[in-house]
């Protein structure tokens, strides 16, 4: 478990897979380790890398065999990023997602205006920030800009 938990996310390397909340289960029997991970987004290209990194780290740690399993359900949410993970994101200059809490399984709300959520600038802490684009360098991040220190920054968007 400890070895698997230390493996880093290929696209957000400040986070370990455990911080990100994609590591769902690790079991071991007679030196054979079975690790279950869940994708963040359906098309996340980092998923295969995560599997390969897990396999490599566990084999290097002396386990005889490694199975990496994929679990689609329940679907990943940014609420599974650990408190430690949120802090590491902020320290790396990436605004962490806010907590969403339990959501209904009812109708999907339609938003005709961009979200006016309060996101603080990871550099100066100001809340005077605005969204430049909901889509950034990876599927999980949006682009924002701070009106006080004028720095553009990335924000892991809530899902």
């Amino acid at each position, binding site marked *: 478990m400890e070895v698997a938990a230390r493996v*880093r996310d*290929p696209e*957000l*390397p*400040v986070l370990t897979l455990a911080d990100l909340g994609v590591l769902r289960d690790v079991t071991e029997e007679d030196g054979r380790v079975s690790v*279950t991970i869940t*994708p963040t*987004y*359906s*098309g*996340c*290209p980092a998923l*295969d*890398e995560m*599997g*390969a*990194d897990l396999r*490599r780290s566990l084999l290097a740690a002396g386990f005889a065999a490694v*199975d*990496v*399993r*994929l*679990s*689609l*359900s*329940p*679907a*990943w949410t940014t609420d599974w990023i650990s408190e430690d993970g949120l802090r*590491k994101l902020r*320290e*790396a*200059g*990436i605004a962490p997602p806010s907590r969403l809490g339990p959501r209904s*399984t009812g*109708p*999907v*709300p*339609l*938003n*005709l*205006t*961009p979200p006016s959520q309060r996101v603080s600038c990871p550099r100066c802490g100001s809340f005077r920030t605005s969204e*430049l*684009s*909901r*889509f*950034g*360098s990876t*599927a999980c991040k949006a*682009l924002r800009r701070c009106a006080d220190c004028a720095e553009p920054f990335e924000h892991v968007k809530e*899902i």
Partner: protein
Amino acid sequence: MSFDNAYESLIDHEDTHWAFGTGFTEALAGVDRDVPDVDRADLAAYCLMLGDDALILSHRLAEWCSRAPELEEDVALANIALDLLGQARLLLTRAGEVEGGGRDEDALAFLRDERDLLNVHLAEIECGPFAGGDFATTMARLLVFSSWKIAQYSRLRGSADPVLAAVAAKGLKELAYHRDHAAQWVVRLGDGTDESHKRMQAGLERVWPFLDELFAPSPVETRLAGVAVDPAELRSEVDGVLDTVLSAAGLTRPADVPAARVNGRAGRDGVHTEAFGYLLAEMQHLHRSLPGAKW
């Protein structure tokens, strides 16, 4: 641990870390894959219908990359295309597995001919950046497509097929922001200048004839009650969403004149529009010329 640069930690890794793009594993390795007690050929066909919808629209959206009106939009459309491609990989893999003939996601995406693809016409029609299209038309299509898919996937979460239910629950979160993105553009263009309003209205007129097909049940969907969603059930929900967006945008709902079918057949029957052959030629040519190519 803190980093001045988010990517500093990569330096400690061995070279083998840099393996992006190779050695992809099967998309469904390790997922609960029980097959419900229904006709396997029907279930495989249904997975193909859903998978092809996502695959073909993903390809159409990717055509915009480097051609969108602004850089942020290149990134946005590529991101949306990537989400849809991820959904398609899962659905095609499931189709191949249920079919039991040894075809994987690549064989299904790249080695089927036009008549074997089962996507709806809305996903395949040309809406730009090439002939007969416009960015506004692409947003009109994305709005209609994602509103319809949201209605379909919401219900599919309760499917008797555990893989379809899981793909739907996950995909729904993604479709929600695809629809928001399209809806916000439709409002911005519809409620913008005379020119943007005119082109947004023209975009709606272009895609509207393909709405009717979305709600027409195919025999496979009818036979798969409990596993598949009856598309006829989705119409009022989708109409409600579209009316809300159009009214906020000051646009007029086009007249409902469905595109002609060929002897009653359309996308779900493997009968496609003229533009589709060109799309497949581009999408499949590399894999067919160099089978199994990797880089």
